[in-house]
């Protein structure tokens, strides 16, 4: 890439009519090497911008490379589609947003150039040069502030207008094929986090580190140094001092420097996300020093948005960082000392200065005035730029129209004159970069001598230095940084509760860096305040006239500061304009709230790798091998059913259910909540949280458990087993496990009963073995006496099954003889395998959640959450039998007592359809309709292969809840299906099958 030809400092075009070739004057836009420039002149990077081929150097940003190549229009504005170039060159050039393939809204001013980039400005029709949407500029007189509130709202026409408005607004283009990007997130820690590596931040970091702190220093720029390396007033020695500070920082063992890293927000307890190109790092600091500097603010005059009208600091950065000539002949508008420095920076680089226009009538003397005079630069004091004139090519300025301005800020246009130039610098003021300070809870006050908001009180552990602290001069910034660095270190060892009056002393008198009113009205407007949103000076006047004359309403009505730059270059001017209109001081007007993020953050950085918790039972691979179709139950993956080739889902489910009814099946119920409680008051605790009685439960027995909330609503159910006098083991629903454990823990924190609760849900697992052959299968694997006399229904036994210690519960949700076998999670696969082998002769059939739902429905068991809702009481759900109202207390008891006096609204009943029913069956949540009113709904419904008809559960009006009552269910398509109220259980109403010895399997097999 070292071919000399490639070094020509102008664009190479693939198009014959390349517009830049006839502008030889732009050839010299790259300056000779600067002492610490950021570009690598040995590495050329080729790229295209809107079909034209350009090149730049490694280290360039998109804007610096384009500007060096003479490209002046970098984008079009949001509303009027006016041509725009570089304004801030500091990460808020919102009018130079690029689309690069999938990447949208790339900020050209700060995005590093990459080889092969194919760039186009966002939001134009046919490119920046011929943007057809620029027609809107001509219509701008018809588009006053908030115009979209004032028209387009005819009801019939609004959709048309809205479509049009949506099409022409919006910025970049989303590329549908963009893949999901997953980035790693990092956690980091430090003693002192310094945000901003300018002169004050560098000094603070060095001072804190010298004292012994572990320091992290972050800066959004590619290199440290801040304004110390470009606001020089031609004095390269300052840049040298800054460079040395940077070197010291880079070689300090206790300082870590992160460049190209944005501190994107401040969150409680010094939690600061640091965003770099590739990831987000969550930094927890013990103290935070905010040395974020200040944003330069534009002057407001007509056509201040033309390409070539730049903030002075933007020009300085172009020069010293990228060796790019911002312009050839400049007019410099100043209202502070920094403006003179900028003029000197231009002058020393051989850029001719046509005029310095000084807004103040009596500027404070400074050393640069004489220097400029000696170079024959005319200085117009008490003048303003009234207007910038566009060049014939309409891609830049050709002159600045200047005129005197009187004490009230009125331009004296009678005395105007035009000064030819190809660029204008604006240096009229700064606004503190206080976003993070505000987010941290700092209070700022307006300091008239500085015309700036400065920190007034800072929260503990938060410090500020440098410009954000009101300190502007080079040497003072170093001192301020050093002081604050030491103070922050002291805070680490002796954290003070509050940290007020951080501005230990106001800096020695300097003229205020901010002009109080750098806005020049113009009858034709186009004097922009907010470049993101295309807001002109008059828009603020008009908004105030319409009653939006406090800062928050003004912001909302005009949308100032609501664009992607979040007001970095516009909030301060808006505030000053409002102060002017209302005759208040900026301090009285106040600021709007600063919220995260400091700069926009990619969704993919925020999301990181994005883990989604997923839970599998210890038997997951067994299920997979058996062809299970999995479903989600909360975070758990459970077999819905086991698929078989050539069988439909329904057939598979019915086959599983029939196997349980006729032989034996088993289901993984390891997802149930499994809890253990021990202690002298364990029984008392359970009596309080569940509706039943447990004090009288015999050891080795279990009992149904129903839990209510304080309003008497059913929230969970399970089984409680007593393993000893002070020891119970109990289950909750799968979905309720974590929540119920949390709730029980909360209750016992309040009650302080002498018992401890342990959540064993993950540590233990469980298999339910059920069916008439269940006992025979289990008997092959254990010595435990399984006879119904020794091990009756609802009994609990600790036993060894297949050499594995287990807890056997003789319960059954599905209504067959069965065992819930609870076992340590790690032993579950071995137990499952042993049961499969032992059951082989009985054709043991694993069954899934759907078959279980069907089987329990046949038994009329309800599922909490499916057959109950957020207001269901035990009485409505037919669970009154499980509530022992005569206990002294249980949660929900008082509510039930009150409710007992009221009639119930609905009642859960079983129903069946006519056995001959052939049409589309109802689905869960279809409504029960009586005389065209909703009186209930279906909560469960299925075809029972055992009963050979559709059965279900439904809520109906209480007066309908009598067996054989016929009621109407309305399907989604409006059809009515008649159902018949049926008492439950539908199957085995007397529970014979769970209690009596059924014919022994060997006899059946015969």
């Amino acid at each position, binding site marked *: 890439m070292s071919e000399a030809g490639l070094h020509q400092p102008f664009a190479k075009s693939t198009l014959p009519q390349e517009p830049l070739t006839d502008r030889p004057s732009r050839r010299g836009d790259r300056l000779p090497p600067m002492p610490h420039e950021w570009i690598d002149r040995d590495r050329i990077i080729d790229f295209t911008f809107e079909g034209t081929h350009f090149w730049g150097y490694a280290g360039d940003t998109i804007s610096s490379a384009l500007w060096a190549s003479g490209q002046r229009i970098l984008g079009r504005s949001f509303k009027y589609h006016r041509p725009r170039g570089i304004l801030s060159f500091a990460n808020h050039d919102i009018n130079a947003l690029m689309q690069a393939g999938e990447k949208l809204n790339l900020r050209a001013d700060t995005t590093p150039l990459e080889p092969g980039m194919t760039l186009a400005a966002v939001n134009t029709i046919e490119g920046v040069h011929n943007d057809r949407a620029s027609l809107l500029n001509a219509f701008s007189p*018809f588009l006053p502030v908030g115009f979209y509130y004032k028209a387009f709202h005819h*009801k019939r026409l609004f959709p048309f207008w809205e479509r049009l408005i949506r099409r022409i607004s919006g910025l970049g*283009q989303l590329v549908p094929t*963009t893949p999901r990007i997953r980035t790693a997130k990092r956690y980091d820690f430090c003693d002192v986090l310094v945000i901003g590596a300018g002169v004050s931040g560098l000094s603070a970091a060095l001072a804190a580190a010298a004292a012994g702190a572990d320091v992290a220093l972050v800066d959004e720029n590619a290199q440290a140094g801040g304004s110390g390396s470009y606001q020089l007033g031609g004095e390269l020695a300052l840049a040298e001092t800054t460079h040395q500070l940077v070197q010291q920082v880079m070689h300090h063992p206790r300082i870590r420097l992160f460049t190209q890293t944005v501190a994107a927000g401040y969150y409680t307890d010094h939690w600061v996300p640091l965003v770099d190109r590739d990831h987000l790092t969550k930094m927890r600091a013990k103290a935070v020093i905010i040395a974020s500097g200040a944003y330069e603010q534009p002057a407001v005059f007509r056509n201040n948005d033309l390409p070539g009208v730049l903030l002075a600091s933007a020009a300085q950065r172009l020069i010293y960082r990228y060796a790019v000539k911002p312009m050839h002949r400049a007019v410099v508008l100043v209202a502070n000392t920094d403006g003179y420095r900028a003029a000197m920076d231009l002058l020393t680089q051989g850029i001719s200065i046509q005029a310095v226009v000084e807004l103040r009538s009596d500027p404070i003397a400074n050393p640069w005035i004489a220097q400029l005079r000696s170079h024959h630069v005319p200085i117009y004091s008490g003048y303003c730029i009234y207007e910038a004139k566009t060049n014939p090519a309409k891609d830049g300025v050709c002159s600045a129209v200047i005129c005197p301005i009187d004490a009230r800020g009125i331009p004296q246009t009678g005395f105007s004159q035009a000064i030819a130039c190809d660029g204008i610098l604006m240096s009229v003021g700064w606004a503190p970069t206080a976003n993070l300070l505000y987010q941290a809870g700092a209070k700022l006050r307006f300091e008239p001598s500085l015309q700036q908001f400065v920190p007034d009180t800072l929260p503990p552990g938060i410090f500020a230095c440098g410009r954000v602290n009101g300190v502007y001069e080079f040497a003072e910034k170093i001192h301020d940084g050093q002081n604050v660095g030491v103070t922050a270190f002291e805070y680490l060892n002796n954290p003070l509760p509050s940290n007020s009056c951080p501005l230990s002393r106001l800096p020695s008198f300097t003229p205020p860096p901010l002009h109080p009113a750098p806005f020049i009205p113009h009858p034709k407007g186009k004097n922009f305040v907010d470049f993101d949103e295309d807001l002109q000076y008059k828009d603020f006047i008009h908004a105030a006239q319409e009653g939006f004359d406090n800062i928050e309403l003004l912001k909302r009505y005009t949308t100032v500061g609501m664009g992607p730059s979040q007001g970095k270059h516009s909030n301060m001017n808006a505030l000053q304009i409002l102060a002017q209109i209302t005759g208040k001081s900026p301090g009285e007007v106040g600021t709007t709230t600063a919220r995260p993020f400091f700069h926009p953050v*990619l*969704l993919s950085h925020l*999301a990181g790798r994005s883990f989604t918790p997923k839970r599998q039972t210890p038997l997951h691979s067994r299920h997979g091998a058996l062809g299970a179709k999995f479903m989600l139950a909360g975070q758990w993956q459970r077999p819905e059913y086991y698929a078989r080739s050539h069988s439909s889902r329904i057939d598979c489910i019915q086959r599983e259910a029939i196997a349980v009814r006729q032989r034996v099946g088993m289901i993984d119920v390891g997802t149930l909540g499994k809890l253990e409680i021990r202690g002298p008051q364990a029984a008392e605790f359970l009596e309080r949280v569940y509706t039943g009685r447990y004090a009288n439960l015999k050891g080795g027995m279990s009992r149904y458990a129903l839990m209510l909330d304080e309003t008497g609503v059913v929230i969970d159910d399970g089984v409680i087993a007593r393993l000893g006098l002070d020891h119970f083991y109990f289950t909750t629903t799968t979905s309720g496990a974590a929540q119920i454990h949390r709730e029980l823990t909360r209750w016992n924190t309040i009650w302080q009963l002498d018992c401890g609760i342990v959540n064993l849900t993950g540590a233990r697992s469980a298999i339910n073995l059920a069916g008439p052959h269940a006992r025979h299968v289990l008997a092959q694997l254990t010595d435990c006496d399984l006879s119904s006399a020794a091990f009756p229904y609802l009994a609990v036994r600790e036993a060894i099954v297949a050499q594995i210690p287990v807890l056997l519960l003789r319960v059954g949700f599905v209504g067959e003889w069965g065992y819930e076998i609870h076992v340590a999670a790690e032993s579950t696969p071995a137990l499952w395998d042993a049961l499969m082998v032992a059951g082989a002769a009985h054709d043991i059939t694993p069954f899934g959640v759907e078959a279980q739902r069907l089987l329990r429905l046949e038994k009329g068991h309800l599922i909490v959450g499916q057959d109950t809702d*957020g207001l269901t009481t035990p009485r409505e759900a037919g669970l009154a039998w499980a509530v022992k109202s005569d206990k002294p207390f249980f949660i929900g008891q008082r509510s039930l007592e009150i*409710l007992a006096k009221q009639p119930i609204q609905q009642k859960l009943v079983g129903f069946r359809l006519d056995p001959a029913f052939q049409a589309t069956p109802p689905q869960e*949540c279809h409504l029960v309709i009586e005389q065209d009113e909703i009186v209930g709904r279906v909560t469960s419904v299925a075809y029972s292969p055992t009963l050979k008809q559709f059965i279900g559960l439904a809520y109906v009006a209480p007066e309908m809840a009598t067996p054989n009552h016929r009621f109407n269910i309305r399907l989604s398509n409006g059809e009515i299906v008649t159902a018949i109220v049926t008492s439950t259980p539908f199957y085995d109403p007397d529970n014979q099958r769970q209690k009596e010895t059924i014919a022994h399997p060997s006899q059946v097999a015969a």
Partner: protein
Amino acid sequence: MPLRLLKFAFSREYPETRMFRQPDRLQSSYDAVIIGGGGHGLAAAYYLARDYGMTHVAVLEKGYLGGGNTGRNTTIIRSNYLTPEGVKFYNESMRLWQDLSQDFDLNLFYSNRGHFTLAHTDAAVRTMRWRAEVNKHYGIASELVDPETIQKACPLMDLTCAGHAPVLGALYHAPGSIARHDAVAWGYGRGADRRGVEIHQQTEVLGITVRSGKVTGVETNRGSISTSRVLCAVAGFTPRILRLVGLRSPLYIHPLQAMVSEPMKPWLDPIIVSGSLHVYVSQTARGELVMGASLDPYELHATRSTLEFAEGLAAHMLDLFPCLSHVKVVRQWAGIADMTPDFAPIMGKTPISGFYLDAGWGTWGFKATPVSGKTMAYTIAHDRPHPLIESFALSRFANYELVGEKGAASVGH
């Protein structure tokens, strides 16, 4: 170019007057005082003046107009609720929304987009079917749709949600809409102001005087006022006002956060809500994505933002829309939501005569702005609850007459 914009180009003076006056002094008494200059308070003032001729009314706002939850919300407007009471109430609101821009002569950007509530589990499918059936019963366009229909309306959605929460279906509600929240406050404010209502910003109510069970006045930072009717419409601040009059409510306050992206060209028309992923999103006319999630999981009376919120929401957004990887979030913020145990509002009269309550708007109250204004105005004017809000009375908590709206309100605002 609409003709009504012509005057801006051709008139010499800017042809607009104040939307609302700024009265410099409080009067010593008003017929009614409304605490809270959010959408609800302003709407109540508007309808009191318009429908009942009650114009000697003051709206007191401690900050600025619409600066509470009204100006922070994500503006989803829908009526596909679960309970008959809720469905009828919100449906009336939808009806009022239709004509509001024209009534106000102010474009509220009431934009009908269609609203999908995604179901990722069979339990969710059941709830969606329940809502669809109840909605249809009351004549509201709502239906359970399959994944293909969702994909057609929203081609960029990954229906597998990165493989961990596949979309099984959705409740589709064609009337679902969004609107420009600030403009709603201004529209009601201007309408009330033009009819004589006084709007006092930067005026905080610090006390309420009650004599023998009757309201007699309010104390503010700008002086006292005597009045016999007070409407409390302060959303997240309700517990603080109730404490002033010694009333108890079951409200609990949680922060609710939201965030917004940089503008991009339009690609998303409908409003998408997913309860399982805790995400909802719509694209504004400006092209920004407005995104929200569920409540912060703790009680807090503060509007601070958290990083966890942004991280979690971003992850779930990408689960739904992987192609948003390069999209940037500009800003996040928070409001404080006044939650009720049953997710239905608290409206109507209270045990204190002349003290009316409009609260419990949690995460869902923006859409109710018109109907709450209208029914509260009725309630104040007649001293009798409007029939549409009878079941939302504060007394329902003591009487066990909850309105179970949780299934339809928890994430879907």
